[in-house]
Structure formats: C-alpha cells, structure tokens
C-alpha cells in the first residue's frame, strides 16, 4: 500500500482561501524522544479538521502546543498569517478528553467561573440552549452523566465565542446515543456557527462524519492527509466480499481468498462481475456480504495493527 505524504492540503475553493491556522516545521522533543517531528499543516477557516493517529503518535502533543499549553522545541504557528501571541487564548475554545471541574459547583456556577476569565463572552442563555444544558444546569458537576459532562465542557469551550475550537477526543467513553448527540452539536457549530474545529479522535466513524479534512499522524509525522472520502478513493478500489465458510468454492476460483473469523473473504475490483461469477457457478449467495473499506481499514493499513503503548 503506497503511503501518501503531503505537506499541503487541497482547500475547498468555496471556503475562505486564507489559511487560518498554519503550523510550520513543528518539533517537540522529550530528551531523546521526538514526539512531533517536523510537522507542517494548514487549517482553513470554517473546516472541521481531524487529527488521527495511534496512541503516542504525537497528536495530543501537537494540539497542546497549538493551544499554548506546551512549548515546542522548534517550529512556528501562525494565525491569520501572524505568529500567535498571548491573546490567542482569547479566541480559542478547548475541550480536553477528560477535564475535571472544581468540586461542589453546579454546571451554571462552573460556566460563570470560566466566563469571568474572558474579556468578551456570549450570553450564557445562548450557550445553555445551544449545548442543551437546561435539564441539569443546576446540578453538581460531579453528579451528571458522561454525555451531560461533555456537553457542559463544550459549553465552557464556547463561552468566549471562539474562532477556533479544539476538541481532544471529546466523545471517548460516551455511549452511542450520547456520541451521536454530540456529533449533532458539532455539526451545528460547524454549519451554523461557522467555527473552525480541530478534532482529535480514535473513532474513525466520527472523523468520517464530522471532518472535512483529516491528517493521519504516526511517530510525530503526517503520513496521510486529505478529505476522508478522497483518501479512501485514493487508497482503495472495489470491495471485500465475504461468504459463509462452509461454502465450497471451485478449485479454479479466480480470486485470492482468506479466512476472517467465520467467513471466507476475497477482494474484488468489480463487485458486479464477482457476483455474476458466483451465480454462474451455482454458489449460494444468500450469505454474501459486501463491504467497502473504511477509515478504520485505512488507519490500520497505514499505522499497522500492533498495539501501541
């Protein structure tokens, strides 16, 4: 499988051509370990940009350097073509994967606490409505569910009406309903509020649904970059067809097969021809399943299947 390495992304011509956030030659070293290795990327206005990668790939380090939480060893970060400065914190919103809030405060009090840190904020009522916090606004932050907690944290990230929103694995640990509810919120922020979003996630489905562009990072470097659908088209053609493992295939079966769990699988570039072939050989196709490659497949093909520490 060829690995695509790109240093620039194709931007949608309908979007603002100005590259809102540019990261140039970013390097972060911890002693002899290089966590981020000469990483360069540009995030155009109004896009949801996904940073994907296995554990330890360097995506959280990258995002925290951009947020100003870590200092880079070298490299430059520009916002609207100017180097970022101390005022950058006023125009960004951040949601970590798991943020603890101060104990014994209600959701409303936590919002008011963070509201006090910014010069310019949008009305709390508006945030509460956008993030649908009304049902638990007066509950202790320690006594709300995981989904409610992530919505409250998103509300905190939106208090200053940020131009760029950083979401670091925001749906990790949420049940499918809460996750989908959260995706709806992000979609609303992207489409209706025109926010630029930088998202890290381990869920490829999430990246596929939410992100206009993704970058797959491994060992501190970008190894693939582009719109999810285009990346899949570039790396894969055809589909996988699988059959019940008890079906006997002819000896001259023209496709290379492999067993995956309880199924026999083969790859084809032309699904229609393959199905025609199976029918011509009187093979029972009632158990046939056709599967297109997903971002999960691409991610595993590019980063390997070994567990990372």
């Amino acid at each position, binding site marked *: 499988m060829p690995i695509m390495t790109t240093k620039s992304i194709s931007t949608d011509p309908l979007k603002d051509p100005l590259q809102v956030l540019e990261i140039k030659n970013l390097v972060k070293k911890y002693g002899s370990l290089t966590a981020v290795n000469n990483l360069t990327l540009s995030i155009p206005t109004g896009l949801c940009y996904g940073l994907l990668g296995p554990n330890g790939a360097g995506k959280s380090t990258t995002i925290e350097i951009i947020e100003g939480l870590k200092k880079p060893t070298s490299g430059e970060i520009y916002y609207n073509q100017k180097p970022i400065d101390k005022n950058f914190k006023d125009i960004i919103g951040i949601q970590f994967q*798991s943020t603890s809030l101060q104990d014994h*405060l209600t959701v409303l009090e936590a919002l008011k*606490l963070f509201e006090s*840190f*910014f010069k310019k904020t949008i009305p709390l009522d508006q945030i509460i409505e956008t993030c649908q916090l009304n049902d638990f606004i007066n509950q202790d932050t320690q006594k709300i569910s995981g989904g409610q907690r992530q919505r409250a944290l998103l509300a905190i990230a939106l208090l200053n009406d940020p131009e760029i929103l950083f979401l670091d694995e925001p749906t990790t640990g949420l049940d499918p309903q809460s996750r989908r509810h959260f995706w709806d919120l992000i979609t609303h922020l992207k489409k209706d509020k025109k926010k630029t979003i930088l998202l890290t996630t381990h869920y490829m489905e999430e990246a596929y649904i939410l992100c206009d562009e993704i970058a797959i990072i491994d060992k501190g470097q970008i190894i693939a970059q582009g719109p999810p659908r285009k990346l899949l088209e570039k790396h894969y053609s055809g589909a996988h067809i699988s059959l019940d493992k008890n079906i006997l295939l002819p000896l001259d079966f023209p496709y290379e097969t492999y067993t995956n769990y309880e199924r026999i699988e083969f790859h084809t570039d032309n699904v229609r021809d393959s199905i025609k072939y199976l029918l011509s050989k009187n093979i029972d196709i009632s158990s046939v399943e056709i599967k297109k490659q997903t971002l999960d497949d691409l991610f595993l093909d590019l980063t390997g299947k070994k567990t990372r520490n």
Partner: protein
Amino acid sequence: MKKIIAIISARTKEFYRDKASLGWNFIFPFFIIFAFSFIFSKDKKDLFQVAIIGPVKNVSTHEFFKLKNLALHEMSQKQALEKTRKHKIDLSIDVTDPTHLEYWVNSTSKNGYILEKLLINMTSTPVTQRVIKEREISYLDWVFPGILAMNLMFNCLWGVGYIIVKYRQNGFLKRLKATPLKAYQYLLGQVFSRYIVAFGVTIIVFLGSKLMIDFSMKGSYFDLVVVYTVGITCLISFGLIVSARTTSKEFADGVLNIISWPMMMLSGVWFSLEGAHPGIILFSKAIPLTHLVDATRAIMIEGKTLVDVWPSVAIMLVSSAILITLTSILFKWSDD
C-alpha cells in the same frame, strides 16, 4: 479583579459545600477545647505552695510553717511576687524580720485565701498584708491560643497546598491554563478565599468558646486580628510552596504532614518548651507557628501589644515573603 473574585467565590463555595471538610474544621477545635476544659476542670494540686523570702531558717520560729501539705520554696521577692501573680505560688511570705511578717496574696486565689487565714490565726507576730490581683492562668487559657493556631495551620496547609495539588493532578489547572487566567490571579484567588475561610472558622470557634467557657483575653482585639492576618499569610505561604510543583496528592499529603507534625509538637501548642534542650528551643524559634502561638498567647493572656510582639510578627512576615517569592518563581500549572 473580576477573575480573582470569581476564583475566591468558587473556592469558598467549594469549602462550605464540602460537608466533611466543614465539619472537620469546626468540630475538631471545639472538641479539643472542650476536652481540655473538662480534663483540667479540677484542681490537681495536692500541696499548698508557699514562697519564703529571706533566710529560710527563720521559718522555724513560726507554727504556721509546721503545717502539713505545705511546700516551701525559697526565692527572691521579685520571683515570689511574679509567681504569686501567675498563681504558681499561693502565698509569699517575707521572713527576713523574725518579729514581723509581710505576706503577699493573690486576691483571686482560693488557696491563697485559706493560707492567709491560717497564717493570721496561727501566728502571734504582727503581719502586714499585701494584695496582688491577677486572675489565675489556667491550662485552658494557655492552650486555647495554641489550639486556634494549630487549627489555622491545618486549615491553611491543606486548604491551599493539598487543594492546588489535587487540581493539578486531576487536570483542572491544565484547563485553567488554557484560558487567559494568569497564575498569579489564580493563586491570589486561592489565598483570599483561604483568608475568608480561616478567619470565619477562627471567629466562630473563638466566639463559640467565649460563650461556653471562660478563657483569658486581656489584649486588644485589633492587635489579635493583625497577628492572625500575618500568621494566616505565613501558613498559607507554606501551603503555596508545597503546591508550587507537586503533582501527586499522596506526596503532597506526606510533605504537609512532615511540615505540620514538628510544628504541632515543637511550637508550644500543647506544652511549654521551657527547660528543653537548647537545640530544640532553637529549632522551635525557627518555626513560624511558634511565633503565631507566642504572639497570640502574649496578647490574650498577658495583654501585650503589637509593639511587644513585633519580633514574632516580623519573622512571620519575612518567612511569608520568602515563601511567596519562591512560589511565584516555581509555580507551574501542570507537569508538562
């Protein structure tokens, strides 16, 4: 200022909504004070203490000195009067002139009253009475300022030091770092919130104890407030320095215990270090809690003023300045 007030408000709410912490801060000092008040409610002295001023051989000419349960102590007039004033001696008698006795009695001493009556009835020699009026300093009077100071120590060390480390460990400080809030604004918020809590607890314990038990308060309340303000600042600064970089609650707890236990044992909270090894006394003088205890004790029991206790106040201020400066240099939001 808006940011600092928000931090103060949030931290203070956290304190009073945390029932366990609230209970501990109020119940613990009351429990200790009432326990001591009960334990020392009975007079434990078995003997009458009599100071002899002048040649002790002269006492043989007087029947009074042959009474049982009298403990005779030979000392100078100055020492005798001081001890009579402090109720360490029940009656001081000058026996220099065998034909005439002069004695000093504290009019508030029960034992002194009995001894005085016995002396008058048992001697044919002319006597001259001198009266000292000074309320007896009970152990409760003595220990009360120590308990208040000790409670403040725990309140400030854990309320600031432990809490900041807890929030660093669970990532809350990292979240704050991602906002425009400055570290000094956060720390000032913590400090001022702790002033409110520490003063609130101290005032309630002080007034509650005053209503139910009698303890000495001879000095000025203004002076006491000034000394407590400096003392709280000093104790908070210890909490701040522990919290400056520590990332583990367990480690912070251990360090705070290492700081607090010697302070509690060697700062004269429970017992006087008079007569202890000079090294211990020197160490004790280096502990800020010793100075808070000594200064508040001097104001409450002896009616001393800020002018009298300025060395203790100065030491606490210098300690605070050093520790706060170090904290401002060392403080980190997170361990990144």
